[in-house]
């Protein structure tokens, strides 16, 4: 039984029929108004995002503690990242957050074309982010900087053999400390990998939303999905806002 037929039954029991008919079909009968329904949905979304903050927060705390323990290794490890690619990705992700915010505005003001183009732009920027990230990951693969059996400390015990390490004027690390760079790269891949996984899930949801929007969806005022997806996408942006300086930037000068 859908909410509409329930509403009609209630009508039969003496509710104001004229007013009941003002309500759109997507308003669930257990909500007083659409405002209340949307607020409940975004309240639930925020609770989910708070658990996500706790999850990423654990990784950030681990990063902070290990960085203090194995400071020289973390500095040398971070010198391996490209500030240019990291900055470019920050630009791409902030832009995608902006286009998504514009998408939410288009949905709120019932602009069909605007919504479709905003979602397309967000999708392209999201895929672009993952593309740039994969270039970075590939470089780590080539240099044996992916933690595991094939991990190599070559760049850290002998910095002159490595272009990035040489450019950053790294001093050679003792073997013990050099091996701790594996901890840095473990956290680097755990944090950026979890972030990328969130991007992939977001892109899948975006595709579904775009599919519906192209067919005229979200123009009836039922835009809770667009709004809550917007919250998710901005959250992923916030995680990157913290990841970028912590992984790429703060060890430039040590």
């Amino acid at each position, binding site marked *: 039984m859908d909410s509409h037929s329930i509403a009609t039954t209630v009508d039969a029991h003496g*509710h*104001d029929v004229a*007013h*009941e008919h*003002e*309500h759109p079909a997507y308003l669930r009968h257990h909500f*007083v*108004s*659409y*405002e*209340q329904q*949307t*607020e409940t949905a*975004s*309240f639930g979304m*925020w*609770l989910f995002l*708070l658990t996500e*903050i*706790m999850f990423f*927060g654990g990784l*950030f*705390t681990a990063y*902070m*503690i290990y960085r*203090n*323990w194995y400071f020289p290794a973390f500095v040398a490890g971070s010198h391996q990242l490209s*500030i240019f690619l990291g*900055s470019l990705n*920050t*630009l791409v992700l*902030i*832009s995608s*957050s*902006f286009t*998504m*915010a*514009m998408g939410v*505005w288009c949905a*709120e*003001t019932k602009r069909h074309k605007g919504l479709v183009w905003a979602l397309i732009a967000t999708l392209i920027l999201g895929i672009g982010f993952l593309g740039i990230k994969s270039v970075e990951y590939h470089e780590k693969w080539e240099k044996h900087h992916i933690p595991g059996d094939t991990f190599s400390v070559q760049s850290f015990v002998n910095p002159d053999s490595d272009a990035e390490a040489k450019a950053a004027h790294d001093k050679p690390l003792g073997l013990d400390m050099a091996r701790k760079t594996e901890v840095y790269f473990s956290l680097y891949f755990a944090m950026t990998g979890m972030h990328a996984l969130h991007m992939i899930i977001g892109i899948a949801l975006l595709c579904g939303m775009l599919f519906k929007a192209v067919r005229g969806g979200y123009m009836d005022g039922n835009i809770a999905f667009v709004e809550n997806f*917007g*919250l998710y996408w*901005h*959250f992923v*942006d*916030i995680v990157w*806002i*913290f990841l*970028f*300086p*912590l992984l*790429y*930037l*703060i*060890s*430039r*000068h040590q």
Partner: protein
Amino acid sequence: MSEEFENHDPNSGHTESEHHIVGPATYAIIFAALLVGTALTIGASYLEMGAWNPVVAIAIACIKATLVVLFFMHIKYSSKLMKLTVGAGLFTFLILVGMSLSDYISRAWGQW
């Protein structure tokens, strides 16, 4: 927002407080502010500030994240319930991180 629902009248809250729509101008200003913040944090990383480098970077990141939460995520225009929820989440998060760090700081700091 809750006072509108107290009388359980199906029409209360339907017409009076319409959902606040944040417009493109606001989004554009916040977008520009985020870009400036990014430029600042990259610029700051090239300055020699010793222990202050991470502090400045995290401070700028916090400002950027606050802008995203308030405007892109509409918390500035949301009900007290939403504001309190986000605030309580942040508070809990800081307690968890703060307590974990205080444990590490107060035990054998610098002896590893």
